[in-house]
Each structure stands twice: as C-alpha cells, then as structure tokens.
C-alpha cells in the first residue's frame, strides 16, 4: 500500500523535506503532498536587506510550486486543524487529507496584535517590522524619508526568527545613515528582553567593541508592553520608556494558528513539542516537525531547518520501516551576521557549544569565525544562490553537514566558571 506523507508548509523545511523524501521513496512507495496557503516562497534572510535598498522584494520571492521535484503534489489551502486521532488534515472549505506520516513545517507567525497599541495609529507610518515583505518595503520608504532622529529597534520577546537579525539591522542602519550623511543627527537604540546584545560569553568578549564603534545604545531586559505610535513612546511592563521617531519592531512570534486548533500538537505559543534529537513530535509517533514550527531550544533559522532536513527524511524512512529513529540532530546552526560596510561575521554552534573563534572550513576556503571579514560578507551574498539551487532541492552541501564540525574551532576558550 502506497504511504501518504503530508507536509504542512512549503517554506525552507517543507521544501527540503519534500524533495529529499521524493528521492528516498519511489512513486509506488509514497505519495508526497505539500500544503501551503499561498505560492510565495520568501528567501527570508533577504528581508534584512530590503529596508536599506540592498535587495528588492521581487528578488527574494519565488513561486513555492517551482521549488519541488516532479512527483510532489502541491496544494494551495488553509489548514483548519489536524485530527491526530484519525490521522487526517482538515482544510478550511472542507478538504481532508489522510496521512501515514505528517510533517509540520509551518514556521512561525508574527503576532504584532499581542502588544498593546502596536497596530494602532502609527503602524506603517513610524512603526514597522522588516520580518515580512510588506513591512520591509514600507520600512525602506520610511528610511528614505528619515532625516535624523531616534531609530529604535525593539525585540518584543524571544523566541524570534533569526535572533541575530535585529543586531544586523542596527549595524546596517549605522552604515546606511553614515552613507546618507545623517548619522551625527541620529541615535540608534536596540531594546532587548535579554540582558545584553551579546549574551554568550565568548561572543560578548569578542564582539562588544562593535557596539562602541557603531555607537549603538542598548536598553536591556526591556519587555515592551505598550506602543504609542503617535507620541513615539515604547513603554515596558516595569514602566520604563524609550522614545522613538522611527520604531522597527520584531513582534512576538507564535507557531501557525492551526497548531493551536489541533488538540495536543503544540504548546501555549503554538510551537510543536518536538524531540530535540529525532524531530519526532511528542504528541504521536507518526508526526514530525522541523524548522521554526518546533519548540526546540535551537535557533529559529534557515540553517537549523536545513540541517534538520538532512536528517528528517532518514528518520521518516526508519519510522515507516519500523526501525528505531536516529538521535542525531545536535542543534547545529551556521549563520552569517552582517556588520555593515561589506563585512560580516560567521557563527557556527549547536545545543551544547556556544559560538567560538577559529576558522570554519568551506568550499570557498576557511572562513573566520566570530570575526568580521569581507569573505564572510561575500559568503552571505552568495548564499542566496546556494539556497535556491542546492539547499531547497535537497542536495547535501559539500563540507557543511548536519552535525557541527569541531575542526578549526578554538574550543579551549569555553570557560566553566567556578563554584559556589
């Protein structure tokens, strides 16, 4: 009997998984279905560049349907819920898809409405997010008009997609305002719920100079409770205020709404409770999840999703053959971090190992870790091509495997602290 594999979400994780499964199973062995609400696949790392005119929305969006190998069935539809007892996906409008294996790859959802006043007067005028294409393009126009003043970047709360993106944004904003000659009459503030811009000891030691060099003001342990988009004031739950002329917000994130409508699938924020090493969902053995949709302590980032995708197809095959799952995923993440002026950092880490200095072996040669370089910036730019042409098709990338490599890393720096 042909197995039915249903994948919810046609973004990074859903596309990689569908394409890898298609290579793993013949048409007689499995049907592979992918469901998404629309046919727009956004290269999300590109959103960071749109507000600064360094990329246009057109350049970072392609049809989802064109990214799949032949033999994959793409359905445009809005998932109402998953009936976990009868193994079926229900779509709004009445469609039903039964499955043998379900993969939740529906990513994270922006929830600006969860912060009081965020969507009130001022939204789209002096309050923006660059985490979607409309917001990023609106912010581009606002930055073109910006003539100095206080530019505040606020992270509502963790978890967020690409936790380094707000940091990259302030660095690029510094570059952008200097290029335009209005940096001296501007202030750039990063307001974060964390206790610093750099929260891991080795990164903090090596990167704190960037904040001084780029004159970024920090407001730490700041949890925004309210936005006044007319008066230009952001107020935290403990009554602290930050004034702004232009607010760039990273809104609260949650999982897909259908996760919340599917009893037992997700947590209170609608993220799917997932085994950190096998990617099997806690709710039932025939459900798996990857990418931003999970509740894992890994970063919500495309690289993490990609590494998960290189392991998930194997575990789905093992599950269907009645074999034990591999406990292989280690939380590996690998990210370029733009620092402005055509330079970038590279970080490579996992659940257990924080980003360290050293060199990372790549096809372009060794790239410096946790240190600014032009090569890293070129790597970041080149990556978009790799994304569409190698990563989404499900090819194994040379030298960048799912498990974090230790070669080239200065691991001896990891300090243990002391005792009490």
């Amino acid at each position, binding site marked *: 009997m042909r197995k039915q594999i249903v994948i919810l979400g046609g973004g990074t994780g859903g596309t990689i998984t569908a394409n890898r499964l298609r290579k793993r199973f013949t048409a007689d062995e499995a049907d592979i279905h992918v469901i998404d609400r629309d046919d727009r696949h956004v290269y999300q790392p590109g959103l960071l560049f749109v507000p600064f005119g360094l990329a246009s929305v057109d350049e970072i969006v392609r049809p989802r349907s064109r990214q799949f190998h032949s033999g994959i069935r793409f359905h445009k539809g809005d998932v109402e819920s998953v009936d976990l007892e009868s193994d079926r996906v229900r779509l709004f409008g009445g469609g039903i898809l039964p499955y043998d294996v379900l993969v939740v790859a529906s990513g994270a959802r922006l929830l600006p409405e969860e912060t009081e006043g965020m969507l009130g007067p001022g939204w789209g005028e002096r309050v923006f997010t660059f985490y979607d294409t409309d917001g990023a393009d609106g912010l581009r126009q606002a930055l073109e008009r910006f003539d100095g003043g206080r530019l505040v970047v606020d992270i509502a709360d963790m978890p967020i997609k690409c936790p380094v993106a707000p940091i990259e944004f302030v660095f690029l904003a510094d570059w952008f305002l200097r290029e335009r000659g209005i940096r001296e009459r501007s202030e750039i503030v990063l307001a974060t719920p964390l206790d610093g811009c750099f929260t891991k000891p080795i990164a903090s030691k090596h990167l704190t100079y960037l904040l001084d060099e780029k004159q970024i003001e920090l407001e730490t342990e700041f949890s925004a409770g309210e936005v006044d988009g007319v008066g230009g004031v952001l107020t935290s739950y*403990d009554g602290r205020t930050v004034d702004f002329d232009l607010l760039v917000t990273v809104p609260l994130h949650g999982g897909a709404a259908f996760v919340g409508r599917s009893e037992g699938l997700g947590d209170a924020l609608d993220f799917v409770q997932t085994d950190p090493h096998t990617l099997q969902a806690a709710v039932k053995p025939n459900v798996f999840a990857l990418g931003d949709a999970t509740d894992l302590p890994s970063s919500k980032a495309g690289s993490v999703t990609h590494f998960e995708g290189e392991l998930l197809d194997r575990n789905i095959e093992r599950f269907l053959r009645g074999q034990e799952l591999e406990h292989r995923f280690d939380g590996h993440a690998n990210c370029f971090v733009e620092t402005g002026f055509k330079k970038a950092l590279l970080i490579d880490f996992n659940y257990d190992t924080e980003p360290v200095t050293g060199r990372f072996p790549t096809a372009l040669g060794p790239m410096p870790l946790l240190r600014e370089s032009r090569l890293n910036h070129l790597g970041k730019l080149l990556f978009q091509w790799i994304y569409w042409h190698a990563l989404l098709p499900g090819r194994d990338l040379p030298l960048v495997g799912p498990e974090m490599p230790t070669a080239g890393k200065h691991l001896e720096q990891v300090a243990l602290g002391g005792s009490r």
Partner: protein
Amino acid sequence: MMLTVAVDQEGFLLDHTEWTRELAEEIARENGIETLTPRHWQVVEFMRDRFITTGNAPTIRALGKESGVPVKELYQLFPKGPAKLAAKIGGIPKPRGCI
C-alpha cells in the same frame, strides 16, 4: 552546611539537578529578594518544570501566559528582569540569543 555547586561566570548553575530550595533562597537574598513568597515559588517551580521537560527556559510572555502570574506582577516579584532572575534562582540557564 551548604554543598558546593558549579556555576558559570555569572553565577548560574551549570547542572540544574544540583539545585535545592535552600540554595534558591540564598541566591534570592544575594539578589535583593529577602524572602521567597508562595508567588515567587510558583514562578520558580514553573520555570524549572518547563526547562526540565522542554530544554527551554520560558520567556516573560510564556511566564505571563502560563505560570498564573501576570507580567506586571512578575516585574514586582523579580525586579528589573524576571526571566533572568527567576532562572538564576531556579538553577537553570539564563535566557540567551545566538551570540
């Protein structure tokens, strides 16, 4: 007499299984909280439970939604930074970004 426990450079426990309620009270006092009330314990216990079952320390918003203590009160109980301070008292790692 207190047993010695391993901590990181900021005083967060490296191994949450070494945590005790007495240690929690001691860390609280060092951070300006004289007495841990039942409301404090509700938050601390929720955080520990969540960390042990999911590997994630809950965020302010998750605490506000699920611990039964509203966000404003969290700030009264654990001044300045509830997520970080309650994590420290609860013997689990502080909330972190990627770098």
